[in-house]
């Protein structure tokens, strides 16, 4: 289910990320490019974070960037961006982020199966560490695939 959304095209390992705003722009880019979201959705995420929305920090350096379905989601999608070194979410010291996952939920139920699987993966310490340590889409995909089978 996760690999239906997260694949070699939507998992990004950029050489350079200039702060949290650039991270959001970069992680949203594949969803924007294939029409899953509109520009409005990217702006909604940026605004939400800038207004103190650091609740998207799940812990362990992982952020789940998202906004409301009505803020520009065309269809459900997920993308991910690995950031080295970490960037500070909303420039706040308390929120260093190494992995941004961007969630675009077309309605409040379509994304639940994928999100449930992601939640399960991220609460498993070994899988979480392996995912954070991934250096390219192939290794990340291997972690996701193993998670789907367990």
């Amino acid at each position, binding site marked *: 289910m996760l690999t239906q959304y997260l694949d070699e095209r939507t998992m990004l390992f950029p050489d350079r990320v200039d702060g949290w705003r650039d991270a959001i722009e970069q992680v949203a880019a594949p969803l924007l490019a294939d029409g899953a979201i509109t520009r409005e959705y990217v702006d909604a995420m940026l605004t939400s974070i800038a207004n103190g*929305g650091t*609740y998207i920090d*799940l812990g*362990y350096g992982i952020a*789940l960037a*998202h906004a409301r379905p009505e803020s520009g989601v065309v269809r459900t999608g997920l993308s991910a961006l690995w950031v080295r070194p970490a960037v500070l979410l909303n420039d706040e010291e308390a929120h260093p982020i190494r992995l941004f996952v961007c969630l675009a939920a077309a309605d409040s139920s379509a994304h639940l199966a994928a*999100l449930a699987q992601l939640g399960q993966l991220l*609460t498993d310490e070994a899988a*979480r560490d392996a995912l954070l340590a991934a250096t390219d889409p192939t290794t990340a995909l291997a972690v996701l695939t193993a998670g789907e089978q367990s």
Partner: protein
Amino acid sequence: MTKFLAVCSTGLGSSFMVHMNIEKVLKELGASGVTVDHADLGSVANGDADAVFVGRDIAEAAGHLGDVVVLDSIIDLDELRTKVRDAAGRHGVAVQ
């Protein structure tokens, strides 16, 4: 029936993950008689649930919701285990 509610700003991202994990922890604890759901902060009123689980960042905004349980991390199962057990105790839910 006791109700635990996971709440976040949008009601569809982190609150759902917390919802799933609360169910997982309750099952581990052998607790029964607890329903779990998730919602966005704007649609929840005091009294909607016996305990409301939120991330640290909206702790203040959720302060009016009664028994508010603040989580340092959304995906730390050990923390959640402790806090769900405590909440269960406060609301008379038997756990193993």
